[in-house]
């Protein structure tokens, strides 16, 4: 498909719309994005959409980059830029605004209480993310053991994280996990 201005504007606008709904990360609006782009507009196929998420998760960098890949499948590099910038612009502006607001009022009791109250919840969210990633449907004992070992090594040692990732890739390629 040749990227018409209408398509690019559609990607950008859809990104803007979904941005402020993406609490927990861009991945949380993936189902809505899929519904609109794949099912309604037919701008890309289901397989392309799914592979965008898979590639962004496997490659280094923020998983939110899957939006750029989705845009790329629809309209090339311009599409990648349109969807990525669209989805980042409103949330980034909000994040900067709120963070500055909170920083200048760091001594306010409400701000300090927010930080203190959210800390255990934030931590549990990190743990839940790790747990969900570690336990896809039908996961075996070997990958779980690998996850546990990686968690312990990352926690208790200063071993470079890339060694751990590399070891995981090697064990996987050899068919051991």
């Amino acid at each position: 498909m040749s990227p018409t201005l209408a398509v690019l504007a559609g990607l950008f606008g859809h990104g803007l719309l979904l941005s402020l709904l993406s609490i927990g990360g861009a991945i949380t609006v993936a189902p809505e994005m899929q519904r609109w782009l794949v099912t309604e507009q037919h701008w890309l196929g289901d397989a392309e959409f799914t592979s965008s998420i898979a590639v962004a998760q496997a490659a280094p960098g923020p998983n939110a980059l899957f939006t750029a890949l989705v845009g790329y499948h629809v309209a090339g590099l311009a599409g990648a830029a349109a969807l990525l910038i669209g989805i980042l612009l409103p949330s980034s502006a909000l994040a900067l605004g709120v963070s500055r607001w909170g920083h200048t009022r760091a001594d306010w009791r409400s701000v300090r209480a927010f930080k203190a109250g959210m800390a255990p919840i934030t931590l549990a969210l990190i743990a839940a993310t790790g747990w969900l990633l570690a336990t896809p449907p039908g996961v075996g004992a070997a990958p779980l053991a690998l996850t546990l070992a990686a968690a312990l090594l990352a926690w208790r040692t200063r071993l470079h994280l890339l060694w751990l990732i590399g070891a995981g890739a090697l064990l996987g390629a050899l068919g051991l996990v």
Partner: protein
Amino acid sequence: MTPPPASAPTARPASCTELFVAFTGLALQGFGGVLAVAQRVLCEERRWLTPAEFLEMLALAQVLPGPNVCNLALMVGDRYFGLRGALAALAGMLAAPLALVLAATALYASFADQPRVAGALRGMGAVAAGLILGTALKLGTSLRRSPLGLPAVLAFGAACFASIAVWRWPLVAVLPALGLPAWALAWRALAREAARGSR
């Protein structure tokens, strides 16, 4: 082999270029998510943030919409160099990985079906999940000084973990349902602390 100390940050970035380079470096190491590497680099290698500061910024980055690690990059950059710093950090987080995923997407179609590649990706995924769990364990020590007190910290943590990981409730419901009571409880605890301090 010692666990990292929870000391005060001893360094700050010298320039926007240093921010850009640091975030590019950590993003490129972030297979399966950037969070674990971000904590390692920002708190332990560069020492720009204490674990407690990291957790505070992440808390805000998580309740706000947008990719958590991108929000975090914006906040760290903004803290040192304002809008320029925020954009430098975000650009570092995105630019090189973007080029990489675009290249990888061409390769993916031809390699995804090979069992060794699929196996390697599965192994990396299992490790990446472990790194995230390890990050949670590491940051856990900074909760010891929470004004909420240990029982409340454990209760809110367990409730949040179960809601998301076990019951799979949507985040937009879980965050206000747990966040607002935790906020209120912390407010009361801080008020009591202040009352004790002024007496």
